[in-house]
Every structure is written in structure tokens, then in C-alpha cells.
């Protein structure tokens, strides 16, 4: 290696940050497309899981949207579940409502659109398989919570009942069961301002003799991500050498926080911690 090559090798190795999280095999195996499956057990299991998931989703969707009728859970063609519950391949007639937003999707080509099932509370594997079976793509994000067992879907986007084109991506937020030993949120204290966009630069704080004896060589100051968009916050936290866990949580009613904005973080800004510490941020959910 010449000196330029050595320079680049050093630079690359030094600059790559620690990944924010470790991938798990579940998020890979559920992306496994059934039509490409060569595993003997996969097909029956997939079909069964999908039918089960759709059954649950039907029930849940029906109670959730009493005014809009039962959403059509299947496109008319494509890799739909083989033994479907007796649902005629009708075109969607109702415009389902989702929160306050009215989804205006013209179902001109019913084979190309599907209704997103309700997957919250289900196990990731079943949920992912149900989506794949409907011809939807799956992306998974870990949600740090111990409120529900690990592997349970806590949130999804788009919401149940939405009509989306086949091949669209559905985001699943999956509980880690509180496994990542991140600190849990303390109740929010003080007012949260929506304008604290400037990241305070993390600076190396020399550990004086008075501070904790367990502290290693240097500690760093936690940047503020309050008021940033989720992506902005993630990037600046990671760029500053920390790990990040994103957590969707509604701000208390007296705080006007725009959706997608970070309104709480733990540890708090300006706290001094070890480099690489996990910072948990709370993002205001989309309405």
C-alpha cells in the first residue's frame, strides 16, 4: 500500500461510526418472499399465518371503522392467500377514514391496490408474512418499550384500512421488550420549546477527580435534539458518536408539538455520558 492508500484506509476505519442498532434475523426472514421460498415449511406456514392475520384484521378493522363497512382486504388478483375467508373479490367502494384524514384513492385497478390490515398487537413474523402475502413490502423498526413482549407489533404505518398500491412499503414498529438496556424515560420536566434546533456541539469533558470513578478516559456532552425532525435528530446524534433509539410517544396535551418532531430525550441535553451511549428520543406521532 502506498501512502495515499494508507491514508484512505486509516480515514475510512476511523470515520465509520458504531451502527445505531444491531439487525435481527426476524427482520430478514419475514422479508423472504413466498414465491421464492424453497423451504418446505414456509409455504403452509405462510398461508396459515396470512389467513389468521387477515381474519384478525377483518375483525379489528370492522370494529374500528364501523361507519365505513368492512374494508376489502384483498386485491382481486396477485399472490392473495389461497384459502381466503369468504370475501368476494369486490372492488373497494367505501373510502375508509383513518384518523381525521380521508384517503382519496381511486380504486380504478383493484388488482393493483390492497387494504392495509391491522397488525398492531401481532407477532412480527405473522404480521410480516401477512403483508408479504398481500404483495406489500415490509420495513421494520425497533421500538424500545417493555410494555408489550418483544416481537410484538406496536405501531404501523400506513394505518389499518388504508388502501395502498401493491408493492407499497408498510413500516412496522416492533417492541424490543425493553431488551436494549436504555434508560427509561423520566416524566418530562419543564417546558419543551419547539425552537431548540441548534445542536450543541458535543465536547470532550475531562473527567475530574470529583466525578465518578467508574468513568473512563473522557466523557462527552449529550447534544440537544429537542425540536428537530426525527431524521435530523437521528443524524446529529449518530454523527456525534451516540446510539439512538426512536420511540413514538404523544406529548402531553398542553404541549403543541408538530408531528414527527422530537419533544423529549433521555439522557437530557448537556448531560455528560460515555461516548457511544444510547440516547432515547420521543417523537410526536403522525396524526
Amino acid at each position, binding site marked *: 500500500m502506498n*501512502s*495515499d*492508500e*494508507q*491514508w*484512505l*484506509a*486509516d*480515514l*475510512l*476505519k*476511523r*470515520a*465509520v*461510526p*458504531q*451502527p*445505531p442498532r*444491531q*439487525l*435481527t*434475523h426476524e*427482520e*430478514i*426472514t419475514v*422479508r*423472504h418472499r413466498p414465491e*421464492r421460498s*424453497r423451504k418446505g415449511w414456509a409455504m403452509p406456514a405462510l398461508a396459515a399465518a396470512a389467513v389468521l392475520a387477515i381474519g384478525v384484521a377483518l375483525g379489528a378493522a370492522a370494529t374500528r371503522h364501523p361507519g365505513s363497512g368492512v374494508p376489502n382486504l384483498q386485491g382481486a388478483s396477485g399472490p392473495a392467500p389461497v384459502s381466503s375467508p369468504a370475501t368476494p373479490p369486490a372492488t373497494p367502494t367505501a373510502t375508509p377514514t383513518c384518523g381525521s384524514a380521508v384517503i382519496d384513492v381511486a380504486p380504478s385497478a383493484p388488482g393493483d391496490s390492497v387494504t392495509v390490515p391491522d397488525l398492531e398487537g401481532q407477532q412480527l413474523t405473522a404480521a410480516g408474512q401477512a403483508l408479504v402475502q398481500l404483495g406489500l413490502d415490509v*420495513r421494520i423498526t425497533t421500538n424500545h418499550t417493555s410494555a408489550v413482549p418483544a416481537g410484538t407489533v406496536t405501531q404501523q404505518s400506513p394505518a389499518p384500512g388504508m388502501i395502498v398500491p401493491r408493492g407499497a412499503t408498510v413500516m412496522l414498529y416492533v417492541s424490543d421488550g425493553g431488551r436494549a438496556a436504555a434508560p427509561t424515560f423520566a416524566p418530562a420536566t419543564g417546558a419543551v420549546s419547539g425552537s431548540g*434546533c*441548534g*445542536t450543541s*456541539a*458535543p*465536547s*470532550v469533558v475531562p473527567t475530574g477527580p470529583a466525578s465518578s470513578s467508574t468513568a473512563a478516559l*473522557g466523557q*462527552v456532552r449529550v*447534544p440537544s435534539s429537542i425540536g*428537530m425532525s426525527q*431524521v*435530523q435528530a*437521528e*443524524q*446529529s446524534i*449518530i*454523527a*456525534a*458518536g451516540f446510539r439512538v433509539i426512536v420511540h413514538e410517544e404523544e406529548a402531553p396535551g398542553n404541549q403543541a408539538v408538530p408531528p414527527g418532531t422530537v419533544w423529549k430525550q433521555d439522557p437530557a441535553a448537556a448531560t455528560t455520558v460515555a*461516548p457511544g451511549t444510547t440516547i432515547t428520543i420521543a417523537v410526536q406521532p403522525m396524526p
Partner: protein
Amino acid sequence: MGELQDFADFVRRRSDPMLGSAWLLTGGDWALAEDLVQTALSEVWRHWDRVALMDAPEAYAHKAMVNTFLRWRGRRWSGEVASAELPDSARDTGGFGRVDTRDSLRRALRELTARQRAVIVLRYFEDRSEAETAHIMGCSVGTVKSQAAKAIARLRRMPGLADIPAGTGGAAA
């Protein structure tokens, strides 16, 4: 289900190194990097009965990742467009050297072509030989050499990177 257990172990072991390479390939974008690694690993899982018996299953996984990256380059990410998205906050670092270095590198990577990025990641981050790199990318050793030389020349001219001496600077933590 030993097969699934083996794969789970493999994912756990390879997650960090693959994500590191993917971070460089994608010009420092964790979301894209995770997507890339997940896609590559699902390719590995699809052929797991065969891959598990290989001498170097991780080499297969990295090959799958680089191939996926090169196949996707036009569709999912292209080098030049993304630099405007970098948050300003990451630049204003008050002298925290590593963040400066990292941010400069992200900008610089996005100036390279996808093939140049792939070559430098394989050669200088993963420390693979020219022959191995050529094999993974499905090109000749000559191409590896010329792409690497072009990438280095380009990076050497980048402001913010060129003045970083080897082995020093930036390592603040």
C-alpha cells in the same frame, strides 16, 4: 430449527461489520445502510442451505451486499444528489474532530461513483486484496486498480479531507 438458529447467529455476528461497510457505500445514511444490509441478508437466507456450508459465508454476504448496491444505484440512491440533505448541525461541531472528519467523508463519498465507492470500501475498509475485490465486483483487477486510483485522487482533492494526515487527527474519543 437449527437452521434458523444458525442464521440468527450469523446475522448477529455480521450485523455490525456489514452495516459499517453499508454506511460507507450509501454515503453515510443509516436508513439506506440498514435497508441494504437487510436486502443482502435476505439473499443470504434464501440460499442459506448452501451458504451455511461455505468456507466463508461472510464473503458471500458482502458480495451480495455490493451486488445489491451496484444494482440499485440508479434506483435507490445516486451519489451526487444527497449532499444537500446533510444537516447543518453536524457541521457546526465546535472542534470535535471526529464529527468533522465523518461529515467531510460523507460529503466526499457522495461525490464518488457507486463503483468507486464499492472499490474503496472493499479494498481499504474491508482490507480485501485486489483480486478478491475484482472477484466480488465481477470486474478485472485492472478495473479495480484504476477505479481505486481515481477515487483516491478525487478524495485527495476534497476540501476537509485532504488536510487530514494519516493516523492522526479526529480521534478525539
